[in-house]
């Protein structure tokens, strides 16, 4: 069977390529920010921390969205059994989005800020973390995403509608709809942040997680030959648990932004349940692996690098989102840790563990299919990439956690969170050392990325079993 015949998979490749480039850009920007923590004069008033950080986190969100769209275009023909409907429109959407994003990044980098006027929010920078994209770009993004959602629906209606496709259909609609909650300006900052969290939290802790559940289900069937019936049953259980905890878990962001006290209880209760589905997902992957290996022995896995990243996802999601998230999710703890390097530690391991990993796995699945490889083996570069990137991000997370503890104790618990309290905590020896280790581990991560990029470019030329 030549799966490459599908145009949908070519479109997926286009999305994956841009995603990889943006991932590299993200890391470079992070590095600039990490250097500035230690040497604040670096690029001062030329390319300030706020600029580097804006591009760092925007590139992050955008490369993940690209990789997610790519993943759907990739798996849709396998699931529905037909070519994706509206592929030409999808291509047009891809070019429009890519041009728009290039312009947005150039404006972030060269224009950076504007006067205090609506025009700045429309044309330059919206100035709301993660949602910095100016309004014109928001509208463009919505249009392109609508095309994408239309294509998915039209294809699913025409072809076969598996459990995985059904989950993705509902999930993508919610994911796209939520973006609208972040597209207006208000003077009232509490109302602003209330809706802002609808996008951020209900993305990463509800709709994106369910998306990952869908990808993991697809991957297990594709790579291990796991039983669809069992995998899809697990998927529905995961959807129930993820949405059941994640939707009201939103309350853990409503402790201190002006919203009423009842969110303490609601946020604490439901967000404390959020790690449970992550445990379930972890168990699911490891269980299926063991079960299939029991049947077929060592030949179980037909794409080793992809599978390694999927397993890393099961671990990383549980650790970064589940454990590091739970650390600070109770209001008794969060009143001290809220908005510190501790938050940052969690942000890194969660985004990496839950999303970067499985999406990189999808890159490898795509390469395998594109080049008609029956069984894809890991190369030296594949192994260096996954080891160095995972070790680097874990190292950064630990460094930030230590620095975060120092910051919380000194700035928050001891000195009461003022301007001076902040800087005294930042100058404490353990904090500075933490920042040093973060930089070192960031460099390890980037070296790992270089291996990844080389591997993605060269792995299909290595001697694999061809179809």
């Amino acid at each position, binding site marked *: 069977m030549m799966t490459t015949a599908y145009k949908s998979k070519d479109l997926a490749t286009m999305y994956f390529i841009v995603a990889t480039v943006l991932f590299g850009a993200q890391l470079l920007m992070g590095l600039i920010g990490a250097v500035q923590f230690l040497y604040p004069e670096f690029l001062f008033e030329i390319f300030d921390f706020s600029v580097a950080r804006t591009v760092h986190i925007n590139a992050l969100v955008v490369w993940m969205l690209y990789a997610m769209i790519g993943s759907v275009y990739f798996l849709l023909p396998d699931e529905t059994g037909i070519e994706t409907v509206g592929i030409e429109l999808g291509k047009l959407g891809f070019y429009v989005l890519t041009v728009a994003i290039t312009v947005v990044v150039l404006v972030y980098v060269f224009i950076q800020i504007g006067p205090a006027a609506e025009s700045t929010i429309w044309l330059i920078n919206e100035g709301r973390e993660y949602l910095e994209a100016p309004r014109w770009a928001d509208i463009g993004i919505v249009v392109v995403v609508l095309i994408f959602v239309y294509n998915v629906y039209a294809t699913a209606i025409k072809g076969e509608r598996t459990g995985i496709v059904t989950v993705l259909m509902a999930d993508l609609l919610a994911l796209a709809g939520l973006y609208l909650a972040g597209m207006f300006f208000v003077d009232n900052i509490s109302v602003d942040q209330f809706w802002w969290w609808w996008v951020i939290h209900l993305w990463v802790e509800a709709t994106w997680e369910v998306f990952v559940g869908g990808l993991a289900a697809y991957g297990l069937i594709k790579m291990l030959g796991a039983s669809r*019936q069992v995998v899809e049953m697990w998927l529905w259980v995961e959807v*129930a648990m993820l949405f059941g905890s994640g939707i*009201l878990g939103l309350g853990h962001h409503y402790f201190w932004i002006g919203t009423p*006290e009842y969110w303490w209880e609601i946020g604490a209760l439901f967000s404390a349940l959020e790690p449970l589905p992550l445990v379930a997902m972890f168990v699911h992957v490891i269980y299926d692996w063991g079960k299939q290996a029991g049947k077929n022995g060592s030949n179980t896995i037909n794409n080793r690098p992809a599978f390694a990243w999927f397993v890393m996802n099961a671990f990383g999601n549980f650790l970064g989102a589940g454990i590091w998230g739970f650390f600070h999710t109770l209001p008794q703890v969060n009143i001290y840790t809220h908005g510190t390097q501790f938050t*940052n530690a969690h942000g890194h391991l969660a985004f990496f563990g839950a999303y970067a990993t499985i999406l990189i796995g999808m890159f490898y699945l795509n390469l395998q299919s594109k080049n008609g490889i029956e069984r894809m083996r890991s190369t030296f570069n594949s192994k260096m990439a996954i080891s160095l990137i995972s070790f680097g991000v874990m190292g950064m997370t630990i460094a930030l956690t230590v620095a975060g503890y120092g910051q919380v104790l000194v700035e928050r618990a001891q000195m009461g969170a003022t301007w001076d309290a*902040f800087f*005294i905590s930042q100058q404490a020896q353990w904090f500075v050392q933490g920042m040093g280790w973060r930089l070192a581990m960031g460099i390890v991560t980037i070296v790992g990325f270089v291996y990844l990029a080389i591997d993605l470019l060269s792995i299909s030329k290595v001697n694999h079993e061809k179809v």
Partner: protein
Amino acid sequence: MSNKIVSVWTDNNFWKRSAAWITGFSAILLIWLTFDTLGQITQGTDTDMQKDAKGLYFSKRIPSATVINYKIGYEYSDKRGHEVPTINGKEKFFGRDDYSEEEAAALLHLGKLGSQAKNCMNCHTLLGNGAYYAPDLTKAWLDPKWKLMMAITQKKTREEAMAEFLQHPSKYPTHSRRMPNLDITAAEAKGLVAFLKHMSAIDTNGFPRNFGKKDITLRERSAK
């Protein structure tokens, strides 16, 4: 692998329906809570404020922009078990304490726009959300540091010192990490200070805890 259903626990349709019900129920609950919360976080009016000024506490979680006409505090409340913003009579803001609702709202609007246009949130946190490169701004208006900054900027009032600092931040370094110049005009600075003053009067359920209780500026000075 047969598709025979052995028990309801292995029945995909059962789990599918459960997922739909749980999701629907959570979503409805969230929407209901959203209506309640939005009601509680709509901004108060100047009339509320004038009534509140007779006592110590704000009756609205998010007060009217005319809060800039008043002196704001942040005190421990026995009833609430944490600190809450307090209102302590009138206070001049750039020489006036009679801003009308419209004037005050216009200043707040300019300030909020400015906070986004200058991308404050990618160095600072506001209400604890944002970046961790610079101090939290939730209660920045109440920061004891401004006493020292008034001397450094040679201004007589806190608001003037803040406005001066915001216009030329890198001229007044306090630590090796400086705030960059963001082309903030005098008018924009005034709006930003109004925005910060208003934010310090938002009821944040006691975040940050013990704010300014350790006045390091004064302690350092007395040590000298």
